[in-house]
């Protein structure tokens, strides 16, 4: 039997719920519904939304590509070097995004540490959609790594050891045993990374600039609309809230509850 919660705890829990719900509700109340449809279907809005979804999808793929090996190493390795290096991967989680943007600028910008060589080779990252993807991946990677690392730790190596003793080759063990067990953690991590990428603002503005159809994602469009047309900014904000809610609700909530993140945070 589950031990019961003290009854008073529902009051602060309820306040906590209101704390999150009321501002979101305020956006809904503020929306000018008569012009809502025209505001969110303007060409600038649609372009920004499509760019956001597209770049967030690509940056999530990049996070999976880079984050899965990182999470496996962090979760499995006993090396003290790995223990020392681990905080670096989590740093973008606590850094203000604008700092991430500045860091990326001096790495991949035209005169940056790597950027100057890329530029000489004819690869121009500044002001391109690639810059948006890099900014998003930079800030989202730790979300995926944390979620998956937790899953890696909680799953352990017993099943793989059994598979190996039964004669399965490492590649077969990887695809048939390891990956299926890590899938819930990977999905929850990918969803979090996607949601974070979708909302990325500071690093993008600092590093990639703002140009319609190229680098101006939905959060940047909202920020710009705010200057001239507050109603449009509110309508677009609601659009972003809805898109984020769909991502979290449809794919995320069950995974987040049962997947790797909870154990990842606990460990």
């Amino acid at each position, binding site marked *: 039997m589950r031990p019961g919660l*003290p009854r008073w705890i529902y009051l*602060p829990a309820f306040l906590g719920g209101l704390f999150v719900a009321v501002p979101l509700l305020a956006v809904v109340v503020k929306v000018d519904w008569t012009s809502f449809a025209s505001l969110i279907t303007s060409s600038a809005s649609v372009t920004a939304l499509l760019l956001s979804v597209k770049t967030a999808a690509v940056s999530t793929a990049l996070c999976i590509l880079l984050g899965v090996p990182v999470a496996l190493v962090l979760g499995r390795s006993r090396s003290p070097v790995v223990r020392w290096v681990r905080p670096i991967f989590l740093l973008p989680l606590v850094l203000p995004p604008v700092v991430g943007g500045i860091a990326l600028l001096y790495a991949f910008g035209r005169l940056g540490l790597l950027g100057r060589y890329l530029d000489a080779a004819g690869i121009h990252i500044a002001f391109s959609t690639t810059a948006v993807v890099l900014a998003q991946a930079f800030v989202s990677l730790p979300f995926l790594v944390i979620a998956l690392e937790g899953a890696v730790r909680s799953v352990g190596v017993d099943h793989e050891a059994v598979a190996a003793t039964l004669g399965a080759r490492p590649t077969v063990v990887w695809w048939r045993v390891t990956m299926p067990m890590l899938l819930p953690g990977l999905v929850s991590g990918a969803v979090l990374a996607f949601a974070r990428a979708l909302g990325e603002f500071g690093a993008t503005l600092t590093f*990639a*600039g703002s140009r*319609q159809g190229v680098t101006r994602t939905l959060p*940047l469009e909202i920020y*710009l609309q705010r200057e001239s047309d507050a109603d449009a900014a509110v309508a677009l904000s609601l659009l972003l809230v809805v898109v984020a809610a769909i991502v979290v609700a449809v794919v995320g909530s069950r995974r987040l509850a049962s997947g790797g993140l909870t154990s990842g945070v606990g460990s």
Partner: protein
Amino acid sequence: MGHGSWFKGSTLVAIALTVFGVGVSGCGAQGADQHKAITVYAAASLRSVFDEIKKRYEDRNPGSTVEFTFAGSSDLVTQLTQGAKADVFASADTRNMDKAEAAGLLADKPVNFASNTLVIVTAPGNPKQIHGFADLAEPGLVVVECAAPVPCGGATHKVAQQLHVTLTPASEETSVTDVLNKVTSGQADAGVVYRTDALLAGPKVATVEFPEAATAVNHYPIAVLKSASDAVGARNFVDLVTSGVGQKILQQAGFAQP
């Protein structure tokens, strides 16, 4: 488990109470202040000059202090219409001051106290040989400007239209500071900013003036607000800004006569 969550819960409540408590006592301390303090909401581009004018104000009015909130003019108007209390509002364009006036926030008519004109900034030494606005349309040049809804962007578009020059900017930034940063960090070859921004950047940029800037001058209005807690102090501050002393400080920073 039950015991553990109880502890956690009570800790959180304690933290919440501490945070709110500090917030409340902070406000209380301000209210009990014996000094007269005026709050000035000012456009971010006025930061350095207003810091200077604040010193003069506090010298002339012993016991009085000036507190600033610097931000983009449209952010400031939004905050004021949402109930922020301030004594003076200084905007970087007439459009945002008009918004404040339409919202019934002003105690009197706004006065223009300065103007700012556009210039082109490039890397030091002007390596791309840009000598006028039309040069910005040169293919292969990475140009950054403000987006149209921002005051500096509106002015840039006006000049481009008058000259029948079509710019293809690499980026349309939300603030003039972002344009400047893209040039000083070497990301862009050229950017269109205000003369005052170029002066602030000093040797980090080369400045190229163009005569057509005179057709898209940006005016800075200032006004006393209805919500002023010290209307006399607010009036004195506005008078100081428009006085010879204030004008001299403004002109040293690159602002032109209103």
